[in-house]
């Protein structure tokens, strides 16, 4: 399939024109309101221009008039599939700024919630990936398994997806008594279901034909465009924040950072499946050893950060999520900026998809795992 990378314009016999097609804001496979202006020649894509901003809610501006716990509540809704990681990023930023040390119990709980969120996000990604390529059954298989995680979240945090569970200093309430038992049950059950995913999609010849050698991103390009997360690791870019800048309970856990040098869609796909295995492994190491203790430190009623600039990065399901807070000593931040992984990943799409066909464009976008509110904020 590497022949399709060369764009041959037959200008001598038949005059063919390029035309613009709008994969508009309303489209079943752009995973949100994203507009792509695609310049096509027949079926071949020449250039893609993403137009973002259709779901821009002014979150960063809103944060300037909110207190820090309220900021956390808004971060749920940006990358809603990695809600807890977003929450944790802001909490860690505030805690580091105030030099507050959280108890070990909090670190364990946060990391377990992180990994469960990552699993839920990857499950949704997998079911939508199959659906985009036409295997509509995968949608139901993925959601069926994701329901277990969402039920666990609901029991402990009260919400299924937009958790709002971490607060500066700890978590909002202690974990439910059933939590450990349910998580252990889920791990055993999901381990049995994960091979089904491989049978249904990974090993399928049609699927492999659709993703092998499609959407190649070289290591240099990944670094240049700032593509992080499984999309970057698929090109060999070692960027796992859990390894390079560990936080919470990650220093205490044994896990591998999976890399693949192939750089095509199948590599990115396979990496996410392997990340699901790794997440299960991490949760297993932590779930039995949650230390006793407080679930939060007593913080002052009104959280005020000292003057200065603070940055914290976490590994969300999509890549490196960063929170940059500029504070002038008051109870509202002066400026909050979120480094969203989706934004950088999206703009590498042009590099990956140029020269391929429309159907490939859809497949490549699926493997990038974009969540548009994360890009637009």
């Amino acid at each position, binding site marked *: 399939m590497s022949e399709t990378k060369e764009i041959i314009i037959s200008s001598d016999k038949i005059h063919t024109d390029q*035309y613009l*097609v709008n994969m508009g804001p309303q*489209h*079943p*496979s752009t995973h949100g309101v994203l507009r792509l202006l695609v310049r096509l020649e027949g*079926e071949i894509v020449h250039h893609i221009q993403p137009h973002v901003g259709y779901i821009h809610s002014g979150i960063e501006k809103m944060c300037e008039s909110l207190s820090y716990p309220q900021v956390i509540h808004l971060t749920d809704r940006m990358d809603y599939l990695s809600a807890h990681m977003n929450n944790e990023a802001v909490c860690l930023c505030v805690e580091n700024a105030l030099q507050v040390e959280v108890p070990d119990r909090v670190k364990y709980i946060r990391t377990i919630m992180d990994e469960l969120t990552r699993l839920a996000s990857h499950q949704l990604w997998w079911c939508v990936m*199959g*659906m*985009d*390529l*036409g*295997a*509509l*059954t995968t*949608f*139901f*298989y993925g959601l*069926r398994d994701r329901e277990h995680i969402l039920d666990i979240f609901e029991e402990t945090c009260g919400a299924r997806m937009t958790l709002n569970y971490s607060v500066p200093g700890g978590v909002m309430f202690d974990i439910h008594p059933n939590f450990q038992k349910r998580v252990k049950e889920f791990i055993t059950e999901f381990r049995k279901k994960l091979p089904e995913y491989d049978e*249904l*999609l990974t090993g*399928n010849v*049609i*699927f492999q*034909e*659709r993703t092998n050698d499609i959407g190649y991103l070289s290591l240099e390009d990944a670094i240049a465009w700032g593509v992080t997360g499984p999309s970057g690791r698929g090109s060999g870019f070692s960027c796992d924040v859990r390894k390079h800048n560990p936080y919470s309970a990650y220093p205490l856990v044994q896990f591998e950072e999976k890399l693949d040098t192939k750089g095509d869609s199948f590599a990115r796909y396979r990496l996410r499946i392997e990340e699901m295995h790794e997440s299960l492994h991490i949760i297993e190491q932590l779930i039995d050893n949650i230390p006793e203790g407080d679930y939060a430190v007593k913080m002052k009623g009104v959280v005020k950060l000292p003057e200065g600039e603070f940055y914290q990065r976490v590994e969300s399901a999509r890549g490196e999520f960063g929170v940059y807070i500029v504070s002038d000593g008051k109870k509202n931040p002066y400026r909050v900026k979120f480094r969203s992984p989706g934004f950088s990943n999206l703009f590498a799409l042009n590099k990956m998809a140029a020269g391929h*066909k*429309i*159907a*490939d464009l*859809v497949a490549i976008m699926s493997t990038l795992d974009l969540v548009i509110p994360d890009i637009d904020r």
Partner: protein
Amino acid sequence: MGFNIYDFSGMTHNMHLWFLERMSPTATTIVEWTVIGVSYMLFVALFGLFLVYAERKVCAAFQQRLGPMRVGLWGLLQTIADFIKLLMKELIMPKSADKFLYNLAPFIVMIATFLAMAVLPFAKGLQTLDFDIGIFYVTAVSSVGVIGILLAGWSSNNKYSLIGAMRSGAQILSYELSVSLSLVTIIILAGSMQLSVVVESQRDWWFLFKGHISSVIAFVIFLIAGTAETNRGPFDLAEAESELTAGFHTEYSGIKFAFFFLAEYINMFIVAAMATTVFLGGWMPLHFGQLESFNHVMDFIPPLVWFFMKVCGVIFLIMWFKWTFPRLRVDQILTLEWKYLLPINLVNILLMCLVVLTKFHL
């Protein structure tokens, strides 16, 4: 009236005589045409309803859910409700669409379907037209449907529809070759293109067993090419919901969309019926050569029931494909046809010729 569930020819003959007694031969012909036309339309409507319901239930079973359950007992009235809804929808036509072609396209697709259905042998004595070039006629007539699809895509004045129609046109034209060649394999085995002769000569063994390897290969290729012909299953890029939001019938609503929708399901029925007639014995019960007692037991089930059982089995297979596999890309579909299926088909024809010449068949 001479109604014999095992042989309808008595009944049809009696009806013909009944009409002739009461009116002139011309009037009889016209009335008979009307009766046959209405009964075909009724069949298409009812079987289409059944197929849509079956698809939703089968798809739900594969996805571990229940499917329609609320409208009527077990959701049986769901399709009727859907069609009533489609009938009541506003017919929105794009302003710059080509009016005549836009309105004509659904009808062409329907006409092709009806034409192909006319020669299918449903049971002994229940076949409307029995040409001596039956198989050839079916392939020729199902090609007319392509025109409908291309017209729909072009006249909608919509880039997405045009892309969908072009893809679909290329795909159907290519796969017609495979369909025709796999049918040619069976024509060699049967010695005739006439559908009633093809069915009768499967009295001892179905052609799937009779021609062993060669027939099985032809059957598999026919199934693959047949699903590609009807824009179904892994070959449904013409209406790929996740890419082009409905392809060539994006701009159609209400009853016109219902025509395309129904035509697709009835085309699936025609492909299954052809597969049944030509490979699985049509309305012939399962006979194992000269095993008299077994054959006699099999004969108890009426031929009409045999036919529909086999057709439903093949339709289930086709539905199974659709809900399991991802979609192929357009260049992969064309590669599959021209680089793989066509050479295999040609070799298979040679193989079948050898089998027939050396009489190395059951």
